């Protein structure tokens, strides 16, 4: 049997270990009975193990813990410990547990995490390099400055989106602010915010976001904000923008509303590159719909996209649920 197997009395008193336990740990038979087991684990892991074990003993809930177990040669190896209660006539009569060596798998997971972080930093660096390349181009082609400056700003917006777009591993998954639409929207609009936080108001439901959604959302919001700063509400001190993102579980609806800017008397005629980029990102890439209303008090844009196009785990989540 490759696994270590142990068993305890209902109160947690260890009274049995299989041969593999003794082979792995090299300790004399019987020496880890009672509470002696705990000394076999790394001192740093003992408090957690005890806490979980006591919890299981008190509640009857399954026991599961990752801890470092001392091998016969003195080396601590990551181990998965599990135990289940055995019932007879509705009462726990024993606990049966196992320990499985997961050291290699744990190391591979840690290496992957390090590698993934390193790659992420390099990608961020590349955005800076691309921005520099365009800046250099501007220096030798000053007549193209306005167009190329716009390009630099778009590249930087994509760089910001990357923090939200990077694929999450098991370990980085809980970094919640970095996987929610709200965080990305606030980040993208930060350059336009006033000190009192009243110029740009963002509100959003809890909407998950990954690399599928972050890039097109970043481009759309960047273009809307840039336009507002040039011609719309953000071009004057009195102007305000509100951005509200809501979901019904299937669709996400984002409403961008400008107020307090120059009064709009007619719909602007031309479709600039920025507008094309918004349309391509919103309608083509996110398969959403978009309406623009040129209201007298300011532009209002309503974008509706399927949730699954912002966050691909949504599909598997639904299937699992």
């Amino acid at each position, binding site marked *: 049997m490759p696994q270590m197997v142990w068993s305890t009395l209902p109160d947690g008193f260890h009274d049995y270990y299989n041969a593999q336990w003794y082979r792995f740990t090299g300790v004399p038979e019987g020496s880890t009975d009672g509470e002696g087991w705990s000394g076999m684990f790394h001192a740093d892991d003992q408090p957690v193990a005890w806490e979980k074990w006591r919890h299981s003993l008190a509640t009857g809930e399954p026991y599961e813990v990752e801890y470092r177990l001392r091998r016969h040669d003195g080396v601590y190896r990551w181990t998965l410990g599990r135990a289940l209660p055995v019932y007879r006539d509705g009462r726990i009569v024993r606990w049966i547990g196992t320990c499985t060596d997961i050291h290699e798998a744990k190391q591979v997971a840690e290496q992957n995490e390090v590698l993934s*972080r390193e790659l992420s*930093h*390099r990608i*961020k*660096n590349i*955005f*800076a*390099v*691309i*921005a*520099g*390349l365009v*800046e*250099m181009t*501007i220096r030798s082609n000053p007549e193209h400055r306005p167009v190329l400056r716009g390009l*630099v700003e778009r*590249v*930087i917006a994509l*760089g*910001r989106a990357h923090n939200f777009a990077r694929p999450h591993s098991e370990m980085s998954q809980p970094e919640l602010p970095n996987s929610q639409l709200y965080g990305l929207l606030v980040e993208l609009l*930060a*350059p336009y915010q006033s000190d009192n936080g009243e110029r740009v108001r963002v509100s959003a439901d809890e909407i998950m976001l990954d690399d599928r959604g972050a890039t097109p959302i970043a481009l759309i919001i960047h273009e809307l904000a840039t336009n507002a700063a040039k011609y719309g509400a953000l071009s004057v001190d009195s102007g305000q923008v509100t951005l509200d993102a809501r979901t019904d579980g299937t669709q996400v609806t984002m409403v961008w509303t400008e107020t307090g800017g120059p009064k709009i008397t007619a719909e602007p005629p031309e479709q600039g590159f920025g507008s094309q980029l918004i349309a391509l990102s919103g309608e083509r890439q996110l398969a959403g719909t978009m309406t623009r209303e040129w209201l007298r008090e300011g532009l209002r844009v309503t974008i509706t996209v399927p949730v699954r196009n912002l966050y691909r785990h949504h599909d598997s989540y639904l299937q699992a649920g």
Partner: protein
Amino acid sequence: MRAIIVEDEFLAAIHAESALERLGIAVLGMAEDTQGALGLAAHKPTLALVDLNLRDGFTGPLIGAQLAAMGVNVVYVTANPGQLDGVNTLRSPVLEKPLEEHKLANTIRSIFQKEES
């Protein structure tokens, strides 16, 4: 304000230089390693943007500390702020790459305000 840029990726340095110039800050020079950075310090800059991983290794934190000791306002610019944990003893401001101009402007403004008060 007169700035130096310590960065071994010249295009990233160009980006930083353009951003500083748009903020009206003259750039005295760029350096790729410790020797270059300390050489530029002779020109008495008031501000230094310092990356962490440079041509001579992970020397940014020490360069930053040395420049700060000479009275230069140091701002770290890095793709990996986590690397500063425990080594940013003077608590110099940190900006993430790619550099965002509004954050750079805010950081520089707060340095100015501190100097004036």
